């Protein structure tokens, strides 16, 4: 049986030690947030009216997409050094194409492995969204063009860029986008920055 004596500072320090030993985090050890979770939270806080992922959460990924023919990555400024490895963007804008949608096909859930194969992957916020073009400001590159701050998206067939399969690009909202050969990957790989999609990107592209 132990009794604390309170008339001297040593006992008060002892008290503090006693409390510190009960710090829940001392035993639990906080799992820190990933870089992208931090980025999304900060970006979302700065646009409180919207929130992450308009229309995304829990919605079924219906589909979109028939891979359209041609695309090309066009990096404004200077780009893809012909024949070199991978995207070598030196400009500040990367232009990607959205494949044509062919109605509501059902997609399988994207896998982390499938995601990892993409040359470009980023988290970005829609700065402007018009049928002609969607512009995203990149919050974080997971793969590819790390110098570019902005990505533009246009459809290959002239359809509205704001509607990409089940994904609707809304100004101020955050999206995760994966692309290869200049073409944005539909079918659940690209879409609103939901927590689960973010976790998939983190897993796929963590070093």
């Amino acid at each position: 049986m132990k009794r604390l004596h309170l008339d001297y500072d040593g006992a008060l320090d002892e008290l503090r030690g006693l409390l510190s030993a009960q710090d829940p985090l001392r035993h639990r050890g906080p799992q820190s947030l990933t870089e992208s979770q931090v980025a999304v939270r900060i970006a979302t806080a700065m646009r409180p009216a919207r929130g992450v992922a308009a229309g995304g959460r829990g919605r079924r990924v219906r589909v979109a997409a028939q891979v359209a023919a041609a695309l090309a990555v066009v990096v404004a400024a200077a780009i893809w050094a012909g024949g070199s490895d991978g995207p070598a963007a030196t400009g500040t804008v990367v232009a990607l194409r959205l494949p044509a949608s062919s109605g509501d096909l059902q997609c399988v859930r994207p896998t982390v492995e499938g995601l990892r194969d993409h040359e470009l992957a980023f988290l970005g916020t829609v700065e402007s969204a018009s049928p002609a073009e969607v512009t995203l400001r990149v919050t974080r590159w997971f793969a590819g063009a790390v110098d570019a701050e902005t990505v533009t998206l246009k459809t290959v067939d002239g359809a509205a860029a704001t509607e990409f399969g089940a994904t609707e690009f809304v100004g101020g909202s955050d999206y995760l986008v994966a692309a290869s050969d200049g073409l944005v990957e539909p079918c659940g790989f690209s879409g609103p920055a939901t927590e689960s999609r973010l976790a998939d990107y983190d897993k796929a592209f963590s070093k």
Partner: protein
Amino acid sequence: VGADVTEPMADMFERVARDIIPSVRSYLLRRLTPAEADDVLSDVLVVMWRRRHSMPAGAEAAWSLGIARECLANARRTESRRRSLVECLVHLSPRDEEWEGPPLRDERVSRALSKVSPRDRELLLLRAWDDLTVGEIAIVLGTTPGTVSVRLHRAKQRLGAALGSTTHAVPAATAEGKHEASAP
């Protein structure tokens, strides 16, 4: 100081937010479940952004914890409304102890903490768990360091007395729902 003046507000906010997220999140994780803590963290960042123009240079961390404290209280009000409804529905009596955080390992300390006032408890834990200085606690609570110092000293004495009284109350099995007399 001069360099900060030219830093765009959004960049400055982002830098500060990155700096303070670990300590704010730890503060919340000590007092809520992990899922609740992450929800409230998002609220804290939103409030910080709204109040960014009053962010005190050099005291951003304590200022952020002050906001976290408000958001925590708000989350608990919501939770306690839900809980009291559940308690009404299943005819449970409200809990005696007032410690609302995760259960502590040491039953004796836990009981002693339940016996001191919420205000004492908050001060003691800001100091012992969050490792804040008296000056930082003053910012969190919106008061002066002198006041914190005095209150903290008294809070320690009261906790010491509560600990003393719990060491005498040995048989834990009988205590359910019964208030023991607190030490004078």
